[in-house]
């Protein structure tokens, strides 16, 4: 970096005292303004809509970069900047404030950087779609909401933006709502995450009832002096964690994420891989001071994360949809991050979050490039041999794969290394789960690469028509590939967040093992799938019944569908029974519109249909009086 340029920009930034703060507000609101303009003014002009949306996130990115440089060079302490938002008596005080500590700055760069690449990529991917403008409006709305989460300095604000990303994610998953599956997936995502959110709200209110504030800094300062019992502390931690379970798709609320792949691929990359699903991890890191004192909460978090990691990785080995494999991989990596928070390493978790955002976005965009080339074919068994046809997509996809698997010297190696070392120190069972996951990761990604890009083309017709994607799509791929390579070097990211604790010296054997595991995974995948005509048959034979289980995702969807159906059925039955038996025995059957016959209705009225209702009212009065008076 050119030093005079840096100093110049920093001086410019400082000249009028509060510029850094102003820029934070612009970073947040630029995408919202773009979304509003697109929705209200320019829905007809597609080019203008896209330009507005991309311009807004580019502006946010540039200002975030400026903020980062000011901080990195001058070490200017961030000033809390808040405006009073809502005061209810002396009880509730909510402010709207911005936080710009290193944690927030790192996340700002990730969201706006990856977001910018994906916005540009969407230009190519969504070309010719009738909802082009709507897409960019939703994308900008999402960016605004996500930046809101990153910058929030209190629980209520973060919760509102938290729900807003949920809503914009709902709009984008269901973007192609003509497809019933897409509409259904949007609803499922919204509902499932809401379960976690409601728990989170209760946790927030519980904490507030003890501390009297929602502000992170105030809570952090007050917490030690509150004298909360371990039970309450654990309860608060776990309730707030349920929000992350929903948003970051941890077991048992993970079912929505794979279905969310019904949305357009850039959406999968931005929202359901790089940023929104990582918001849960970010939030846990943001409130790590709340979770770290409670051993119980930490344990639960670590185990939920560990189980999610290995379970999702096993499911991924049997999927056939190019995007679903990546979706389960995302679940698995999010599990890693959550586990890391639970093991007491928020810094390591943020490190992995950052590198994962780069290479997972890259992988999704690469998959999108393949999907477009094959006219929206997503089944990996109808691909094959594409590496010659799409060289840029192939090479960048390969870089993403290696980074995800954790092959040195790519970024994923460094961040995953830190996680595995931490697990090795803290908990043997979790370490074993984590290392198995690392092996499986390399294996299923190897399978995907070999099946998609090597071997004989299995669908000759679409193979012949396939070609490399245009520049607007390949440039973001190259940009993200570069980031996936360098993001882990020299431990810059963790240093920025505050150096990692010295992990001590580990034996050469352990380090060697950590390098060998992914290579071994690739090797196994290569022996099975690096053939002209690859197939799952040998694995199927070897795993037997287990294959059926993983292929069906351990039947979670079926279980939940059954529960929902059962519960809804039961309620309907109870209502029906109530109508038919109790009320009819008393002489009525609800509102008798269904019969539509004057005579019958009047007869029902005359034969005392209402006396049944009246009887129930009387019964209610009697019960209440009995309970209160006689008791």
């Amino acid at each position: 970096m050119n030093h005079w340029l840096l100093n110049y920009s920093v001086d410019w930034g400082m000249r009028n005292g509060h510029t850094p703060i102003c820029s934070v507000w612009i970073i947040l609101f630029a995408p919202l303004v773009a979304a509003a303009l697109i929705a209200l003014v320019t829905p007809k002009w597609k080019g203008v809509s896209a330009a507005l949306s991309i311009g807004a996130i580019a502006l946010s990115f540039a200002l975030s970069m400026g903020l980062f440089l000011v901080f990195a060079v001058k070490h200017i302490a961030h000033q809390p900047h808040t405006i009073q938002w809502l005061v209810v008596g002396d009880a509730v005080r909510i402010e709207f404030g911005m936080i710009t500590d290193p944690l927030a700055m790192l996340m700002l760069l990730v969201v706006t950087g990856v977001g910018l690449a994906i916005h540009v990529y969407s230009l190519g991917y969504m070309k010719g779609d009738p909802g082009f403008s709507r897409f960019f409006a939703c994308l900008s709305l999402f960016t605004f909401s996500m930046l809101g989460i990153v910058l929030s300095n209190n629980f209520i604000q973060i919760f509102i933006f938290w729900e807003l990303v949920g809503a914009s994610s709902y709009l984008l998953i269901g973007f192609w709502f003509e497809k019933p599956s897409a509409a259904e997936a949007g609803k499922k995502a919204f509902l499932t995450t809401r379960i976690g959110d409601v728990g989170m709200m209760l946790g927030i209110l519980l904490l507030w009832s003890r501390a009297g504030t929602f502000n992170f800094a105030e809570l952090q300062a007050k917490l030690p002096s509150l004298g909360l019992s371990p039970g309450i502390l654990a309860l608060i931690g776990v309730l707030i964690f349920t929000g992350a379970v929903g948003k970051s798709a941890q077991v048992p609320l993970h079912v929505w994420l794979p279905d969310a792949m019904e949305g357009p691929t850039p959406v999968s990359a931005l929202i359901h891989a790089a940023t929104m699903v990582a918001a849960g991890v970010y939030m846990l890191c943001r409130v790590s001071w709340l979770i770290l004192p409670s051993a119980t909460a930490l344990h639960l978090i670590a185990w939920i994360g560990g189980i999610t990691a290995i379970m999702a990785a096993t499911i991924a080995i049997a999927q056939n949809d190019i995007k679903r494999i990546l979706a389960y991989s995302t679940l698995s990596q999010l599990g890693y991050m959550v586990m890391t928070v639970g093991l007491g390493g928020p810094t390591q978790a943020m490190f992995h979050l950052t590198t994962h955002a780069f290479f997972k976005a890259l992988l999704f965009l690469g998959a999108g490039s393949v999907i477009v080339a094959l006219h929206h074919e997503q089944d990996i068994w109808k691909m094959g041999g594409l590496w010659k046809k799409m060289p840029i997509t192939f090479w960048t996809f390969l870089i993403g794969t290696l980074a995800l698997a954790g092959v040195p010297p790519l970024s994923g190696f460094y961040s995953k290394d830190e996680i595995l070392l931490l697990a090795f120190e803290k908990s043997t069972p979790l370490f074993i789960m984590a290392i198995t996951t690392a092996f499986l990761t390399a294996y299923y990604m190897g399978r995907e690469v070999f099946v998609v890009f090597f071997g004989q083309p299995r669908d000759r017709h679409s193979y012949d028509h396939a070609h490399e994607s245009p520049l607007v799509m390949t440039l973001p791929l190259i940009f993200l590939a570069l980031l996936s390579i360098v993001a882990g070097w020299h431990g810059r990211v963790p240093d920025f967040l505050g150096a990692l604790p010295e992990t001590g010296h580990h034996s050469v054997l352990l380090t060697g093992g950590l390098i060998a595991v992914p290579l071994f995974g690739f090797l196994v995948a290569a022996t099975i799938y690096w053939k002209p005509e690859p197939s799952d048959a040998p694995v199927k034979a070897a795993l037997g019944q287990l294959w059926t289980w993983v292929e069906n995702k351990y039947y979670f969807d079926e279980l939940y569908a059954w529960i929902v159906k059962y519960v809804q059925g039961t309620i309907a039955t109870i209502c029906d029974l109530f109508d038919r038996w109790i009320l009819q025995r008393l002489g009525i059957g609800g509102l008798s519109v269904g019969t539509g016959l004057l005579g019958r209705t009047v007869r029902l009225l005359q034969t005392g249909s209402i006396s049944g209702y009246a009887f129930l009212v009387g019964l209610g009065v009697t019960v209440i009086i009995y309970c209160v008076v006689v008791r």
Partner: protein
Amino acid sequence: MTGFIGNAWIWNLYAVQLECLLAIWGILILLSDAFAPTSNRRTIGYMTAGFVAAALLYSFFLVPLQGSLFNGMYRLDTFALYFKRLFLLALTMVLVMAAEFSPRIESGVAEFYALLMFCAVGMLLIASVNDFILLFVALELVTITFYVLASYLRRQIPSLEAGTKYLILGALSSGFTVYGIAYIFGTTGTTNFDTLSRHLSALGAQPPLAFTFGMLLVLTGLGFKIASVPFQIWAPDVYQGAPTPVTAFLAVGSKAAGFALLLRVLFTGLMPVQYIWGPLLLVLAGATLLYGNLGAIPQHNIKRLLGYSSIGHAGYMLMGIAAGNALGVSAVLFYLGQYAFTNLCAFLAIIAVTAVTGSDEIASFSGLGKRSPILGLALFLSMMSLAGVPPLSGFFGKFQLFAAVIRRAQTDGHYYVLAVIGAVAVVISLYFYLGVGRAIYMQEAEDPSPIPVSKPMRLALYVCMVAMIGLGIYQLPLVNASIMAAKVFGLH
């Protein structure tokens, strides 16, 4: 009565001017029917709506008065004014709906408007009630007009049946109320809330059994008005069968009136015996939340769905009353304010759609987003606000109620259970509200022709939508108003 005893009648007149204005206008409408041609049905409705809107604006120039009027029967404090404005707002919107709806009324459109006005007079009185006698009179004025309004479509069986059911059950609950009032008077010798409160405080010990009995009977009547379990049974039937403007007025006006009475009675007259009614309302709130939200799941008629939803929302607001602290009361007031906008928005959209489709089934709202983007958006936003999705106003309403309950839970652990039940209800409610949203945006319409929206309707919809979004982002005005209103009870 302090400060202006000398010319009290002037102040009395000052206090009831809104009621008088509405009553006079109502009589004028009746007279106009004799002279104006029937083709002016809509115009009269819109004019009346304009008049009420003007009265609403005028109400902001009224100042609250210290003490009580009409020999302690009537109050014009901030609480009363808050509710009066709320009722006038609801009436304005309902009149717009009624004007839209008027072509479907066979005869007596002018009477329909006039009845709405008289009903609103009763509600305005309810806002100021400070005595059991006035309570009963005002309550009956509202309820009896609703009997007629609910069965106004005389040729349609559902409407007739709704009116009959409301009549008989309403009469029953009125009977309980007046019986209870007699017991209270018999045991304490007063019907005035202030005197009653002093009497109960002076009592020190447990009140006599007969008093508790009477109190519970009075609460029964009020529980009927707000559709709380176990007196909720009428709500879905009547909501579904009544003419839609009447349903809207029931959902917004009548419900708010019930809560106004409940708050006034519980936090002034019956405040000293909070230990008796507090636990009762805790249980009823939980039961009402579950009944309303579970019952809504299998519904496929939107008015019936909103009937169950209104039971559920009564449960949320009972949470605030059960919490019994200042935060809880102001939260209920805020909730009622935003709930009025949200619900009116939903009913406005429903009336516009059913005027074309003639069906209340949720399926008939399919593809509304395409047939009329503004109606689709309005209905969708109101569903999301009812579900409490931020940043819409419904979220902040629920947030304050939950905060009040959690705050109370610090001293009484039972309230944690209520908070958890409320949380479960919130999740369930999103499920069925999203069902409506899905019909609007994700299903194809059988008949994709556009739905016309008249200018006054459009204006009313914009007002409601701006309020829903605006109160979600900048809540301060309504929050401050509700805090000012809640202050009259002097709670902590």
